[in-house]
């Protein structure tokens, strides 16, 4: 026994020494979660991994979503890119066009042996016969409303609208009640925020496909899209003046200060509410996105993934090890708690783990989190709803075309039919070879 322990000890020490002596494999990791608390959490996660794996060093660098489209192509081509980085499906198409993204089929396969992925997280990363990134968390749109204002206006705070018609009725009642002058806030700037709301309305109205089965055929100009835009315009007219220049923060402030009673947005409102208001969390109601008649349950769903760029085999192996570690439910829960209630699990294992649910904010707003998770199943992303993806699909998001079409209606005064027609032309233009 003693000898065994001694030998084991020596071996361990030797192993430790070699690990210490050999340079660790360095993995440069870019992410775009630029808010301070998220930067900090990602740093902590990497540090913990590095401490547990002395032979690997993951070094995170924070970038910003606003500028990554310019930076990444230049940096990657100049050989100054990261070894792996955070991505969304549309950003992925950009980088993939450079020939720099490595398929991760084997890694996905080995992860699938242990974990079962939520399909809508995986789908947008599978095209051209390969998986191009490993999803790590998702986010989607829900219907946020002020229960207190609903109550003051004589509405049942526990009966949020289920259909588009109900939503318009409630807007009218809120307005008539005089409790709020403007019932809802919608963004209208040429900005991602507007794109996302529009696409959310498109999905529930069965207009989720921008391309036909043939990825070069643009089917954006169809009655369902037009209806979605008409509905957006009706909401826009209930939104405070100046909404045509609004992006993320204005609707959020309008809801939190009680200027309006309704906003459709992502789950970061939970933590935002706690951080920037003194009101009880119970005032903040959450519901699925209302669905029109003949529509379908839906939302926009962003699957955030990690894509591998390095060609170095040793680094690729280290990346696999990092992900295997990261996917453990407690670690993953810890990571996505960087903004509780916002980042949604992509595996059933995390979803059903106590680690995920055992967080104060999530505990308090279980219902809101459950709605987001339930609806992530129906989530879609523009340009990534088919088996084959147009290689330039990312340009639709980069040029904010959905928002541009919205402004044609709200600012330019065009009828939705004509604006959508113009939008289809713009899309064809940006995706052409």
């Amino acid at each position: 026994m003693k000898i065994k322990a001694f030998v084991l000890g020596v071996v361990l020490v030797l192993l430790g020494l070699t690990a210490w002596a050999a340079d660790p494999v360095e993995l440069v990791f870019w992410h775009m979660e630029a808010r301070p608390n998220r930067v900090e959490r990602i740093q902590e996660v990497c540090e913990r991994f590095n401490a547990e794996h002395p032979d690997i060093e993951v070094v995170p660098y924070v970038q910003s979503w606003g500028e990554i489209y310019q930076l990444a192509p230049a940096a990657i081509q100049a050989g100054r890119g990261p070894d792996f980085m955070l991505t969304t499906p549309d950003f992925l198409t950009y980088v993939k066009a450079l020939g720099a993204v490595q398929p991760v089929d084997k890694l996905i396969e080995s992860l699938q042996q242990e974990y079962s992925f939520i399909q809508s997280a995986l789908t947008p990363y599978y095209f051209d016969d390969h998986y191009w990134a490993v999803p790590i968390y998702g986010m989607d749109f829900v219907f946020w409303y002020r229960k207190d204002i609903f109550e003051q206006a004589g509405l049942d705070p526990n009966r949020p609208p289920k259909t588009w018609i109900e939503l318009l009725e409630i807007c009218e009642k809120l307005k008539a009640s005089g409790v709020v002058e403007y019932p809802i806030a919608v963004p209208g700037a040429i900005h991602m925020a507007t794109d996302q709301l529009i696409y959310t309305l498109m999905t529930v109205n069965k207009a989720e496909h921008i391309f036909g089965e043939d990825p070069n055929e643009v089917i954006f100009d169809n009655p369902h899209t037009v209806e979605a835009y008409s509905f957006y315009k009706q909401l826009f007219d209930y939104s405070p003046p100046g909404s045509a220049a609004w992006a993320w923060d204005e609707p959020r402030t309008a809801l939190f200060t009680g200027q309006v009673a309704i906003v459709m947005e992502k789950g970061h409102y939970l933590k935002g509410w706690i951080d920037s208001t003194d009101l009880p969390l119970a005032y903040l109601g959450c519901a699925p996105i209302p669905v029109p008649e003949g529509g379908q349950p839906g939302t926009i769903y962003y699957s955030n993934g990690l894509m591998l760029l390095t060609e170095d085999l040793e680094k690729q192996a280290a990346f696999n090890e990092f992900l295997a570690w990261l996917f453990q439910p407690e670690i993953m829960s810890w990571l996505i708690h960087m903004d509780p209630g916002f980042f949604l699990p992509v595996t059933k294992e995390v979803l059903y783990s106590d680690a995920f649910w055992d967080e104060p904010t999530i505990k308090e707003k279980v219902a809101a989190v459950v709605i987001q998770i339930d609806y992530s199943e129906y989530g879609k992303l523009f340009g990534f709803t088919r088996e084959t993806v147009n290689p330039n699909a990312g340009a639709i998001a980069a040029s904010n075309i959905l928002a541009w079409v919205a402004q044609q209606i709200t600012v330019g005064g065009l009828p939705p039919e004509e604006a959508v027609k113009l939008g289809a032309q713009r899309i064809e233009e940006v995706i052409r070879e």
Partner: protein
Amino acid sequence: MGKKLKPTQNFAEIVFNDPVLGILLVLPLLFWVLATIIYPLFNTIYFSFFNIRYIGVPFQPVGLTNYKYVLQDPSFLLACGRSALWTLINVTLQIVGSLVVALILNQNFRGRDFIRNWVILPWVLPTVVVAIMWKWILDPTHGVVNYLLINLGLLAEPIQFLASPQWVMPTTIFINTWRWTPYFSIILLAALQTIQRELYEAAAIDGASTWNQFRYITLPVIAPVLSVVALNSFLWSVNIFDTIWLLTRGGPIDYTTTLPIYIYKKAFQEFRFGEASAASIVMFLGLLLIVVVYLRRLFRESEEEGL
């Protein structure tokens, strides 16, 4: 400034005739200009014949396709129109505005030198500061301009200065003019100050009207300066990017997408560097006439000094 010196021929030969020294001293700047202006300039021409989507991927030669595309692109033609409008109004307002400001500052009042130095402040401020400042002042909900207009009963609804199609162009033009007018007025002021006050006094005694004093005394002196101001104002206005971009990003819709904005969006949002290059070449050709006039002027001026 001091008087121009006319060196004696002998001395000039001793001190000046030193090609080695001359070339040695000019070399750093020459290298810089060649590397960062001339070479890229030729590259723009070269790139305009290629399809360049991603840097590092081999470029595809496409002949004149980029030019054909750009010249047929309605957005490009609209951007040309907007640039023309933007430049024309800016130049006009800047000339008139700077002349008025210069005349006001040319009066006799206490602290004139001090005020003259500080009126140029808008030009000293970084563009991003100018953008934030005016966005705040003109904000529909919190801005002081809308607040005053509504409280004075002149308006019922706040004006969306930077978000409505009718207002956005006038507003951005105003802000740009506001920024450049002081600069030009200082130059005009310097010219005005070369006019002797006695001339006005004598004219006044002769019974000349204010307008005639301006017409026959002031204008002849400042006319050449005015034309410099006009040319400068034109060249700077037409190339303005940052003011517009930071205020509106070319929006709402495309209402303030002038040529520089169009080129920037093509290159760095759509990643079509070839088409962006073609568009910039077309823009340059359009400006060529003005550029030539301007350069001839500068060259003539330097010619007088033996250069």
